[in-house]
């Protein structure tokens, strides 16, 4: 297990006041909140910040953490000394930021038991609903699919410690589902207490990143590279779609960036989305005598200045 320096994570001195800690947390939390930030590391950073704050904002936990001493550095191998928390009484109240979040092993080893014990004391009749995010292929949304997904569910072991349990579910992916939508699976959440029914499981759908297709709601976008003569003269070109290749007619005189709309070829539904083919023009490399000659011939054949619409054009 690696030691975590919660002061370093929040960027405050060990002697910082509770107000300093709160101020530093809020600033970092706004910056790295996964709902706000597009930083790829945002989620990991945010978890770390929340964990640091959960300890330092609570005078009891902070005092217990502090008495391990300041000689520890982030990333150092660490085992909590036996009875490190002897003499500290945790009231277990106000877990606050990141409650129920999956904390690091380090946090769990120090504070896990107290947090869980407090949570267990609450009684619910119906089990809590659970949420999970699943990644599917774009093709699954076109056709519908049956997918085995594995979820890691936080649970409690016999000692009341938090563990992650692997769970496999076979789920029907309905045709026409879009990114950001949720599937509700009745009774697949946490078990109820006593006679209470189990909670539901909500699956948030996201698409695996695709090298070819971009998705915007129901609409799907594809970049299609063309040779200059195909764009100028028109052509019939095979283009991939999530439903398989189609033969596309490129109108003569197509400019780069032109969008061809294939109506109803986006994600199915009522109404279905559209598939947009965005044309790109790729120049063949002039890397040989005959290729260079061809470009020279072109230059002679056209009286063409691509910059005539520029302001202040000297030519």
């Amino acid at each position, binding site marked *: 297990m690696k030691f975590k320096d919660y002061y370093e994570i929040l960027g405050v001195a060990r002697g910082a006041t509770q107000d300093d800690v709160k101020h530093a947390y809020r600033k970092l939390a706004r910056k790295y*909140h996964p709902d706000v930030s597009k930083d790829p590391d945002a989620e990991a950073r*945010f978890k770390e910040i929340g964990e640091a704050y959960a300890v330092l904002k609570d005078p009891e936990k902070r005092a217990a953490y502090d008495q391990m001493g300041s000689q520890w550095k982030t990333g150092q191998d660490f085992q909590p000394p036996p009875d490190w928390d002897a003499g500290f009484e945790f009231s277990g109240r106000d877990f606050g*930021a990141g*409650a129920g979040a999956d904390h690091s092993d380090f946090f769990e080893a120090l504070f896990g038991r107290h947090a869980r014990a407090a949570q267990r004391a609450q009684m619910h009749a119906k089990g809590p609903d659970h949420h999970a995010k699943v990644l599917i292929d774009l093709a699954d949304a076109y056709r519908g699919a049956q997918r085995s997904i594995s979820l890691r569910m936080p649970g409690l072991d016999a000692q009341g410690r938090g563990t992650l349990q692997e769970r496999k579910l*076979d789920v029907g992916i309905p045709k026409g589902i879009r990114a950001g*939508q949720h599937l*509700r*699976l009745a009774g697949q959440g946490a078990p109820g207490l006593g006679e209470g029914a189990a909670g539901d499981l909500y699956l948030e759908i996201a698409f695996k990143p695709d090298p070819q297709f971009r998705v915007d709601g129901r609409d799907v*976008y594809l970049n299609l590279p063309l040779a200059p003569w195909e764009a100028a003269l028109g052509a019939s070109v095979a283009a991939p779609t999530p439903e398989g290749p189609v033969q596309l007619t490129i109108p003569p005189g197509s400019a780069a960036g032109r969008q061809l709309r294939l109506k109803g070829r986006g994600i199915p539904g009522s109404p279905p989305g559209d598939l947009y083919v965005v044309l790109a023009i790729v120049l063949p490399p002039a890397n040989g005598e005959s290729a260079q000659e061809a470009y020279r011939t072109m230059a002679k054949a056209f009286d063409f200045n691509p910059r005539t619409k520029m302001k202040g054009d000297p030519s």
Partner: protein
Amino acid sequence: MNPIAMTFIQGPVVEEEVHLTLVELCQACNAEEEHVLAWVFEGALEPVGESPQDWRFSGDSLRRARLALRLTRDLEINPPGVALALDLLDDIAVLRAKLQRIGVR
């Protein structure tokens, strides 16, 4: 070949086929009723129906309410702030989609 019967779990698409009551929305998000009432008051959530007992939230409210809850819990934002943040995040999502459409990542 031995045919193996596999049962796949099916469920409705919340955004299209489900309307949630106040109680169901609170259960689904693990949110306090008073929070949801405050978000409705600020216009961050817009249920159909006269009184809280009759309210029906559209499926999309699930995403908004969960986002509102995370902002409340993680950033300690009050309900008017949550309503503003939700509106701004919606605007940003629209702008990002436009950028993506014209090929800017």
